[in-house]
Structures are given as C-alpha cells and as structure tokens.
C-alpha cells in the first residue's frame, strides 16, 4: 500500500472516531447522564419527571396531563388509585387489571425516588395529599403568582394544569425559563 493510501485510510478512520465520540458526548448530555445543575434542561430531575408508562399515559393522560409519579408520595397515589369512582368529582373507574398496573407504576416510581427528589415532599409531616397543588413545596414555588393570573384567568381557572404554563411539562421540564402564563405572558420572578 502506498503512503498516500495509508494517509487517506488513516484520515477516514480518525474522522470516524471523532464523529462517534461527539455523538456519544451529545447523547450523554441529552440523556442527562452528566450531573448538571439541579434544575436545568437535561438534568436528572428533568429525566426523573418524565412520564414513560404507556398505560398510565393512555388511561390518565386522556383527561388531564399525566402528572409525574414523583410529584406525590406513594401513599397519595394509593389513595387516588383506590378512589377512582369519585376522582375529583369525576368517574374515572378502571378495570382491576389496568388499575393495578398504573398503581404499581406510580407508587413504585415515587417510592424509589432518592433523597434529591424528596425536596418535593418537604414539610409534608407524614400527610399524603391527593393534590400536587397542596404540597407545601408546590405552594412555596407558586406563592408569588397573583391569584388573578390563574383563578380569574378563563384559560386556566386553577394551578392544576401544569402544562398550560410550563410549556415543556410533558418532557419533565418545570424550569422557570419555560413558563408562559396564557393571557399574561412570560413569568419571571
């Protein structure tokens, strides 16, 4: 093989290796494997708030946003899943098999959240509320928003439609940068 051919082959191989390395780094960042800031896109918390259970998304997400499992303690999910006949004044009953699949997913994903995600359950004092909006952490995070922005806002009515303002909520992103209050505009405190 001539020197020139060896040089060309070498360049191609090096180029390939470089492309694969960049691809690998890109993937690592996208999947959140690199420990980034607490609340940044692609961070662990974003990943952990992504809903990835097809049955849950289909069954619960057809009426409202499929709320991330880690936003309520396991006991709250247990209570919700065992009272679907009167689900916030709606009938949302399911056959037992489907109910069990969803209950297992929700309580399981919430149970195994590590210390970092427990932030969400701070000051709960052993309580297991049925609404995410009743969590002390949630209230603290939303206490600067004037009630006229949601209670008197025809497009919202309450704070329970996360994805109405957190435009990337379904991807597990709840960062303030993404907030846009319908009829009001961008929110930044």
């Amino acid at each position: 093989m001539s020197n020139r051919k060896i040089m060309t082959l070498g360049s191609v191989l090096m180029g390939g290796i470089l492309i694969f390395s960049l691809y690998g780094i890109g993937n690592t960042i996208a999947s959140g494997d690199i420990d980034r800031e607490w609340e940044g896109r692609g961070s662990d918390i974003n990943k952990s708030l992504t809903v990835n259970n097809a049955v849950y998304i289909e069954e619960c997400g057809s009426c409202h946003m499929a709320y991330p499992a880690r936003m309520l303690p396991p006991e709250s999910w247990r209570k919700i899943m065992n009272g679907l006949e009167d689900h916030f004044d709606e009938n949302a009953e399911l056959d037992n098999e489907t109910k069990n699949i969803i209950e297992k997913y929700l309580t399981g994903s919430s149970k195994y959240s590590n210390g970092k995600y427990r932030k969400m359950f701070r000051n709960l004092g052993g309580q297991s509320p049925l609404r995410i909006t009743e969590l002390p952490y949630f209230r603290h995070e939303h206490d600067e928003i004037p009630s006229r922005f949601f209670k008197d806002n025809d497009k919202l009515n309450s704070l329970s439609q996360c994805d109405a303002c957190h435009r990337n909520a379904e991807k597990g992103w709840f960062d303030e940068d993404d907030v846009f209050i319908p009829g009001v505009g961008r929110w930044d405190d």
Partner: protein
Amino acid sequence: MKNTPVFITILISALICVSGHASTIVENQLQLYQQQGASVSDPDHGEQLWRSKRGERSCTSCHGDSPTQMGKHQKTGKVIQPMAVSANPDRYRDAKKIQKWILRNCKWTFARECSAQEKSDILTWLIQQ
C-alpha cells in the same frame, strides 16, 4: 413506475381491512348489547340521550354540541377528539375502550349505569354521524 398498480392495490386492501376492523368491533359490541337484553337500536333515542341534561350535566358538557367537532374537558381543558367516525376514523377500534367510556360517562352524566338498550342506541347514533 412499474409497481404502481400493485402498490395501489395493497394500499386499498389495507384501507379496507382497517375500516372493516372498526365496524366489526362496533357490530360485536351491538350484538353484546342484544345478548344483554337490547332490542333493535334506535339512533333517534341515542341523540336524545346525547342532549338530555341532568342539572348542568350532559354529554355535550365536554363533547360539545356536535359529535363531529372537537370537545373540551370542562374541568381540565383537555381537548377531546370528535366522537363521530366521519370526523375521527380512529374512534371505536377498541371494545374495552368503548365499554369503559360508556360506563364512566353514563355514571357521571346520569348518575347511573346506562341500560343495554341506551348503550346500543347511543353507539348506533354516534357511528352514523
């Protein structure tokens, strides 16, 4: 293209299979209602049910007046795709789903389970829209 006629035949066959599938599911469901005591379906009565009210509650509260249009969950604001097959060909392809929603929504709207006859009437009216 040499293979175009073959491709079109396959495409048409596939479309026929898919559309046939949904109607078979509805047929089976209607037969099931008959086994549960329903007689011949009455789509006019189905429409009456769709519009009847219990206090403020009615099918139209969330689905909107016309089944050919999109609805909106009155509480969560989530968009509900049209119930009419003409506007939403993906409807009525899953027997379990049909049963689940008719059970839940009769209970929410009328505070009771619908009879086999009522279920048959409303399903028949909806698939004709």
